[in-house]
């Protein structure tokens, strides 16, 4: 197939005559009514609805906690959870856009830092190298998940449940399920999650103050990169194409199998990175750290952030804001005196509401042709 950079349809010096009766609108029509405008914003910027929810929650908890929610120390905790869930949620969103899902991220989250700790304790391997090895293991798990799903045509839901238990078993049995205390090797630990912040001594905008937020800063950077990858690269375009119409995408020449495997690799790598950041916060690697709960929190974050489980559409920024909402619910409800268990009720209701809203907005969008 030849590739033309400019449309060449005026061979012989004769251009197409376009019918004068045809009126073409080239831009997007912006609706005039308030509902129309609201729907327009919601459908154009899928992150908008979850961002509104996030702001409402913050305001609610700030009032409910008598102004203690937006405090460095508490916000630091919320942001750590946001980073931990968000990194996985972003990867999950990418996979869900291709029409796949990864339930093994929870055990990669545990295995990667556990490997790092083990290498350090047994052979004195520096944490930096151990961390690289941990992320590499995550990427390899992604290759395994991808190849089994794509080449052996096992649905990824099943593939990754299998690898979830497999890796969980390895992590727990490899060192008699002992938690490992990892050494502190500055500045590596402080750069990747350990907080040196002491509210009584340090200013917020100091090096120590920054470390309180290092994990969320890393997460935000990675989310920004992933957003560019999804929206501004050929890989991102092909990711959407794969999930939206896999047969059509193949006919056009998109290498859909490769796209899926790469996204599984991204998921494994990010889950490993998230686990390492989480471990460095406490300098302790627990072989059962992630478990199944993190998978579900991450998927919940992606879904309420506006990613469709059916593939073809989704947003990584929405998934990250979704992670913030999940973290805020978990911590905020405890802060205003609710039972810790209550937060799951809200999270569950939130997921259902988000799904209903997503489907309805999508239907209205289709009907109004916004």
């Amino acid at each position, binding site marked *: 197939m030849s590739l033309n950079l400019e449309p060449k349809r005026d061979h012989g010096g004769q251009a197409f005559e376009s019918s004068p009766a045809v009126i073409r609108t080239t831009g997007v029509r912006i609706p005039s009514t308030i509902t129309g405008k609201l729907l327009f914003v919601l459908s154009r910027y899928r992150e908008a609805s979850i961002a509104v929810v996030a702001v409402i929650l913050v305001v609610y908890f700030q009032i409910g906690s008598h102004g203690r929610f937006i405090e460095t120390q508490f916000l630091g905790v919320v942001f750590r959870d946001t980073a931990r869930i968000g990194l996985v949620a972003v990867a999950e969103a990418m996979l869900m856009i291709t029409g796949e899902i990864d339930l093994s991220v929870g055990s990669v989250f545990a295995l990667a830092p556990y490997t790092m700790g083990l290498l350090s304790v047994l052979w004195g391997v520096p944490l930096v190298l151990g961390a690289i090895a941990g992320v590499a293991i995550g990427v390899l798990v992604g290759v395994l998940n991808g190849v089994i799903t794509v080449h052996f045509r096992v649905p990824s839901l099943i593939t990754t449940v299998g690898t979830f238990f497999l890796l969980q078993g390895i992590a727990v049995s490899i060192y008699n399920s002992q938690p490992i205390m990892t050494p502190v090797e500055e500045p590596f630990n402080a750069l990747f999650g350990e907080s040196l912040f002491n509210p009584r001594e340090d200013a917020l905008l100091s090096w120590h103050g920054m470390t309180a937020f290092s994990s969320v800063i890393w997460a935000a950077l990675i989310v920004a990169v992933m957003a560019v990858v999804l929206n501004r690269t050929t890989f991102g375009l092909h990711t959407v194409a794969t999930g939206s119409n896999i047969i059509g995408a193949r*006919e056009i020449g998109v290498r859909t199998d490769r796209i899926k495997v790469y996204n599984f690799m991204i998921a494994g790598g990010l889950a490993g990175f998230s686990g390492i950041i989480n471990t460095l916060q406490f300098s302790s690697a627990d072989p059962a750290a992630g478990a199944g709960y993190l998978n579900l929190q991450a998927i919940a974050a992606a879904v309420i952030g506006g990613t469709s489980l059916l593939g073809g559409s989704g947003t990584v920024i929405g998934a990250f804001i979704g992670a913030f909402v999940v973290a805020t619910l978990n911590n905020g409800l405890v802060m205003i005196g609710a039972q810790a268990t209550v937060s799951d009720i809200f999270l569950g209701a939130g997921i259902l509401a988000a799904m209903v809203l997503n489907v309805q907005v999508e239907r209205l969008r289709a009907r109004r042709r916004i």
Partner: protein
Amino acid sequence: MNSQDARVLDQNIPALDPDAPVILEMRHIGKTFGAVTALVDASIKLRHGEVLALVGDNGAGKSTLIKILSGFHQPDVGTIILNGKEVHFASPRDARAVGIETVYQDLALIGDLNVFHNIFLGRELHKRTLGFMLLDSARMRALALTYLNTMGISIPSVDSTVDLLSGGQRQCVAIARSIYSSPNILVLDEPLAALGLREGGQVLGLIQNLRRQRTVSIILIVHNYNQVFEVCDRINFLHSGAIVLDAMTSETSEEELIRIVKSGVVRAAIGAAAPGNGSVPA
């Protein structure tokens, strides 16, 4: 959506130059699938710039014939001659490489991507930003817009995702996508199937625009030929795996075709067709 879709077809198309060279010939093509004989002895000729309608009932062999042309199937017997040289297609890639583009009924459009990303999918334009090759969406958008306007295709916006377009608009985008690679031969597989009258009119308008250009030769697979009579130069009637009628549209008429269909060799086909499916006006 608007009245713009119900355009009147421009009838002032100059007749095809009788000396236009034959660019494609399929000679004595035969193909069987197990016990089923799809094609017995089908031969077609296509001249440069010509719009040829391939008409026939379900099971007449239309799909098999074009799938052989686009490289999906290989013929058991017969030859394909392109620009005077015999060619063999082992895969659709081979057919594309020599400028034969096919738009299938399933269209291969990505519903969740916008119009211009669909047109450029698989041949994206990039620009270097901070050392990274990122999509140059602004340029793809601008080019797609100019391009669609030049082709006379009207859609509400190149920014809207394809799943929000109507069936006719989608068909036009799919055709535009194929034309963008400047093929020599464009094969349209039932482009009017599942389209209403107005929607079909939009697609016919586009074909008429291409026909006026006389730069690309088009093979139009159709079920219901009365719709396409006005946009074709020639009609080939395929029946039971062979061409039973080859007529210039200027030298024949809808009524004549109906008469031939009723009286002649294809009576059996009409008897076999389910009543009221509108495939052949009986």
